[in-house]
């Protein structure tokens, strides 16, 4: 069964800590994405990558960075965690350039910053 795996389901971190969220996909997809999901705001794109070592800012990149050293792995980094980064973080992957192709999402990481 093809899937996207996020390393943690729940995380609790302290303000100011550097936080790494890991995502791995086994479908050989070119594109990978990080979203955050908040009540009433829906899913908002943080960063995405369309190839190894390539990255593009999404709608809310401030306070985040990403790394894609291998095709199957896309990491989200919170450089200095703050309480307003408490959220559900969702990783997704997709095949490039096909309108009919959907995203495959991971199960999410619920991050709490205290």
């Amino acid at each position, binding site marked *: 069964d093809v899937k996207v795996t996020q390393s943690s389901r729940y995380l609790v971190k302290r303000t100011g800590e550097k936080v790494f969220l890991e995502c791995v996909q086994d479908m050989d997809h070119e594109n990978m*994405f990080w979203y955050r999901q908040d009540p009433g705001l829906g899913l908002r*794109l943080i960063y995405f990558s369309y190839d190894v070592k390539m990255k593009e800012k999404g709608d809310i990149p401030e306070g985040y960075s990403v790394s894609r050293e291998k095709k199957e792995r896309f990491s989200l980094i919170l450089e200095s965690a703050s309480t307003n980064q408490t959220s559900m973080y969702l990783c*997704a992957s997709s095949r*490039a350039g096909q*309108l009919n192709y*959907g995203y495959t999402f991971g199960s999410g990481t619920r991050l709490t910053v205290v």
Partner: protein
Amino acid sequence: TQLLEQSPQFLSIQEGENLTVYCNSSSVFSSLQWYRQEPGEGPVLLVTVVTGGEVKKLKRLTFQFGDARKDSSLHITAAQPGDTGLYLCADRGGFQGAQKLVFGQGTRLTINP
């Protein structure tokens, strides 16, 4: 920036009833996708529609795409508790040949037994 508006935001009905939820876009959709998200999980793709006026059926779910490709509806017949979840519409468009998904805020559906 494209805005997707879904209505209603919340819907709670009894098992066996029918329902319709809506998705409207501020601009023409490139490719409209509907997802369902269950609690504690990521969204799962239900359907993709591309052509204006298109209708697709998935068991008890019927998806319609407006002729002008700026709106869509999802109709569920004889709703069941297993239909409970967050329904999200999304437009797949943007950078380098349709790479990014823009989501609506979702309709949270609860089906009561």
